[in-house]
């Protein structure tokens, strides 16, 4: 195993586990930003090489995921006056172990999955992407804070982007940019929602929304 793609995927896996492991919200956001920037780098090192198309894609993705989203989230946090600790439903050590189990599952699944024969250039990308998706889901369901759930959503999106790059190398530029725009709008809306939840209820504990009566 070697090559830049492999290194990037290894770093992404490490960042996944780190997101599960941190107790600081701000650090969590930084980690996701780093992961987004790494995913943005993927098209540049893929088989198609550095072309105008990959340059535009990488530039837009890195700007959005590495710079804009963390800014949005941090400002939402400041606006909502969030306490800085992540509040998990499952404990820290246990969620790391769950993450490891998911890692194992995704490597098993990556070996089983029927894929188009030409696609994956590195044996790592598919299991790494599946693992990122699963861990994103885990973060969404196992954390109380709305901010952390947005972080989970971003991890999930990073996984999907990596998977797409691995399996379908030549998605039209327009579609990719459209996807990024969708994610941008989603995060924007979520940041606004976080602000409103906290203004209405004095907290952003999404768990209590389930107690609302219609």
């Amino acid at each position, binding site marked *: *195993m070697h090559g830049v793609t492999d290194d990037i995927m290894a770093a992404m896996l490490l960042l996944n586990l780190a997101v599960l492991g941190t107790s600081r919200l701000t650090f969590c956001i930084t980690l996701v930003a780093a992961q987004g920037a790494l995913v943005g780098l993927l098209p540049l090192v893929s088989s198609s090489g550095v072309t105008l198309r990959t340059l535009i894609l990488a530039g837009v993705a890195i700007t959005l995921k590495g710079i804009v989203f963390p800014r949005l989230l941090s400002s939402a946090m400041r606006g909502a006056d969030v306490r800085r600790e992540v509040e998990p439903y499952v404990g820290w050590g246990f969620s*790391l172990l769950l993450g490891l189990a998911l*890692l194992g599952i995704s490597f098993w699944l990556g070996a089983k999955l029927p894929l188009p024969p030409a696609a994956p250039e590195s044996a790592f990308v598919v299991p790494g992407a599946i693992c990122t998706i699963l861990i994103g889901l885990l973060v969404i369901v196992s954390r109380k804070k709305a901010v952390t759930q947005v972080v989970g959503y971003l991890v999930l999106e990073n996984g999907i982007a990596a998977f797409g790059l691995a399996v379908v190398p030549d998605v039209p530029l327009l579609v990719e940019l459209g996807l990024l725009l969708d994610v941008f709008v989603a995060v924007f809306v979520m940041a606004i929602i976080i602000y409103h939840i906290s203004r209405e209820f004095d907290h952003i504990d999404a768990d209590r929304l389930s107690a609302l009566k219609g």
Partner: protein
Amino acid sequence: MRIESAVHFAAALVFAPLLLGIINRTKALVAGRTGPPLLQAYFDIFKLLGKGAVYSRATTWVFRLGPAAGLAAVALALAFIPFGGAPALFPFSGDFLLVVYLLAAARFATVAAALDTGSSFEGMGASRETQFSALAEPALLLGIIAVARAASGAESLSACLGAIDGRTWAASGPALALAAAAWFTVFLAENARIPVDDPQTHLELTMIHEVMVLDHGGPDLGYIHYAAALKMWVLGALLAALLIPVRTGVWAIDGAAAAAGMVLLAVLVGVVESSMARLRLVRVPQLLIAASTLSVLALILLMR
């Protein structure tokens, strides 16, 4: 058995306490103090060996056996640890399991002696020590398996660490780096260094290792200090062999590179100790689980 292996074994027995001196010197330098002399650990051990021993009437032979058995187990483990590119004194296939269990046996001797005193205080330290070491062991073992896998399935510590060279690092660098990070965490935890345990402290809330040896005195305490130094050498030699992949085949160069690696490691520990505070006790298991996670990740990266 090769002559350089015997030389390395003897060097380990002689120079192990020097690591403590280097760590303390680094800490003193960073703090702007002069600090104790480099050979202070030797002075302490010799002073203790010259004293008489006092045993409480509440203790039995278990308490007297503990320090000697611990020292013997760690010294035996040293015979299976390669240094630099040179193989260990008695390498055999699967010796890494024996090394891990010899370290566990040494710990068992210390814990049994601590429990034998009947002091609740020492029982608390024993409980903490066993809890943390149970978490540190998988990190070490899985890391060894990952490194062995990177060295194309070598089965003894000497063979697998001897096969780690620049090319292995180029081929599976990320996985080896993860394993090294896990080993470094285990190194800090097992040797009671700062993020896990503070070797200087005498505060009952925070002590782990120091608690268990409070009732030992004289030569017994000297044995314990010496065994702790040897244990640091055992784990440090593994790390140095992994991180300094100098395998020229010329014995003097490889050995000198590994020795330089040991000194660097001691300086690194000193810097870590000067720049970090102790972790809260509930955080320590989390740190060790994270180390195990790194080892598992390294292993998975190499399984492909």
